[in-house]
């Protein structure tokens, strides 16, 4: 170590802030250098001499400071108070117990969010959405298919729902077409089969007859997740009358429908006839259909006519009239067919279809035959000239 380097670390050596190795090197240098030894010794002596005694502060300084602190705390600016609160909250948040508690609550809360049962509101109930076999939402299907007739039918259904149970005959005219129309709308969306429609017809009819609408009965055993129409599902139960009998009848109807779907038309005819004997027009309609499927229109048309004459004004009666017309049309009896379709032109739920059938049918020979045109006088004159 030379003198220049020693001088650069003189103060550190004086105040003992050098590491052991450097301090030893500086001491060796001082031992061999009189100038640097004198320099260091002079500063050391000055340090020892120039000691300033500690002056005791006034006795009341501490109390003054603490009093000033009290008043200063009261006027801590809002930002300072907020920062202090944040600091305090932060110190709490940094505690492992707080973190564990927060994590635990988060886990519980998250689980509850996933597990909580969704309670539908009244609005949800009114617009309940039931999924069909094809996965198409029923409410959407009804809403999206909106011919004028469907709108009317839905209004009727809503009116029936809003006003509660109606008189049987009125209810039959209000609820049944409404339910059917809603179903037809769904069918227009490609959703339903005839037998499902039949089950719903039956549900709507039984509802108007005083029995509560039981969705399980309305669905039937074979429909497997079939759609319950919005109008039918919205209809309130009207009474608790004869639930056991209704259930038995629905079971028999479902069995008959199962036989119909299995193409056991004789068995289906028997079952539907048995039900029809109890006054069920819908069963009578299906009995006629079963006969048509097994024996053809010739055997079935009388059944359709009989039902049409007896129950015209009800949904099965309208259907029987329409299908009677179809049978006559298939048999070539166009006048008879035209007569039956014409009867339905005043029935809103069937008018469009009946009119379409009338349009498709070829005109009668009387209407189709071209009128003979009288020959022109000139020709007559020419003919007479020859």
């Amino acid at each position, binding site marked *: 170590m030379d003198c220049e380097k020693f001088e650069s670390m003189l103060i550190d050596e004086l105040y003992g802030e050098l590491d052991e190795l450097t301090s030893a090197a500086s001491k060796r240098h001082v031992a061999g250098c009189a100038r640097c030894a004198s320099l260091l010794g002079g500063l050391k002596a000055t340090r020892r001499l*120039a000691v300033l*005694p500690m002056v005791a*502060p006034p006795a009341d300084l501490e109390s003054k400071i603490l009093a000033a602190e009290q008043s200063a705390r009261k006027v801590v600016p809002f930002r300072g108070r907020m920062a202090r609160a944040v600091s305090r909250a932060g110190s709490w948040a940094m505690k492992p117990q707080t973190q564990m508690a927060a994590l635990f609550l988060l886990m519980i809360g998250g689980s509850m969010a996933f597990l909580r049962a969704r309670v539908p509101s009244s609005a949800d109930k009114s617009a309940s959405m039931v999924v069909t076999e094809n996965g198409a939402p029923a409410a959407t299907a009804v809403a999206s298919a909106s011919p004028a007739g469907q709108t009317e039918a839905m209004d009727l259904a809503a009116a029936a729902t809003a006003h509660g149970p109606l008189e049987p005959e009125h209810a039959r005219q209000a609820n049944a077409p409404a339910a059917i129309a809603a179903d037809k709308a769904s069918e227009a969306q490609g959703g339903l089969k005839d037998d499902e429609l039949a089950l719903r017809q039956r549900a709507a009819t039984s509802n108007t007859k005083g029995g509560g609408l039981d969705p399980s009965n309305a669905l039937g055993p074979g429909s497997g997740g079939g759609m319950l129409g919005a109008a039918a599902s919205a209809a309130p139960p009207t009474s608790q009358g004869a639930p056991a009998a209704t259930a038995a009848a629905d079971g028999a109807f479902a069995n008959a429908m199962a036989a119909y779907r299995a193409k056991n038309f004789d068995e289906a005819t028997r079952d539907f006839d048995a039900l029809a004997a109890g006054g069920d027009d819908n069963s009578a309609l299906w009995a006629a259909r079963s006969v048509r499927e097994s024996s053809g229109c010739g055997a079935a048309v009388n059944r359709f006519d009989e039902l049409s004459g007896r129950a015209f004004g009800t949904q099965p009666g309208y259907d029987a009239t329409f299908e009677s017309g179809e049978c006559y049309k298939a048999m070539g009896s166009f006048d008879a067919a035209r007569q039956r379709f014409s009867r339905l032109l005043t029935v809103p739920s069937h008018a469009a279809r009946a009119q379409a059938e009338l349009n498709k049918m070829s005109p009668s020979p009387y209407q189709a035959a071209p009128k003979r045109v009288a020959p022109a006088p000139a020709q007559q004159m020419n003919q007479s000239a020859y």
Partner: protein
Amino acid sequence: MIRYQRGDRTAFVALVQRHQTPLYNFAFRQLRLQSAAEDVVQEAFIRVVQNAADFKHEARFTTWVYTITRNLCIDQMRKRALRKHASLDDARGADSDGPTLGEMTADKRANVEREATGDELKERIAAAVDELPDDQREVFLMREVSNLPFKEIADITGVPENTVKSRMRYALERLQAALSEYEEFARALK
């Protein structure tokens, strides 16, 4: 300080008790007036209270509170514009019959040898320190009175550590020159 930030007021009492004496001595040696030093120390602790939430513990509390005190002292000295300090021989008190500054700064625990030199040496030491330039005096006081390391003094004054050491050396050399007639006595001190 962390405890005080959490609302523990007893921690503030402990801070005051620990730091008030060295702070007071630093301010007193800088300002040379007891009342001014008292006000400065009190104001420094009030600033601590007001800004406690902003203290981030990136520096030591000592560094922070000395920085505040130093700035307050500089403000005081600027207010006085010209440093017209009273003579060490001027009597203090309302009736000018109080102790002199030299008497007040005298070390009561001085050893026998120093007592032998009498009050003259005490006055010379205080006067020599008083005559130091401000930047050298503050470094000398922080190192010798408050016993702060050079690194911390550099943080407080905002200059490099080597500059602090240079100022310290110049201060010691000035004192050595001012007290040269006591050099032999000083070399004899252990």
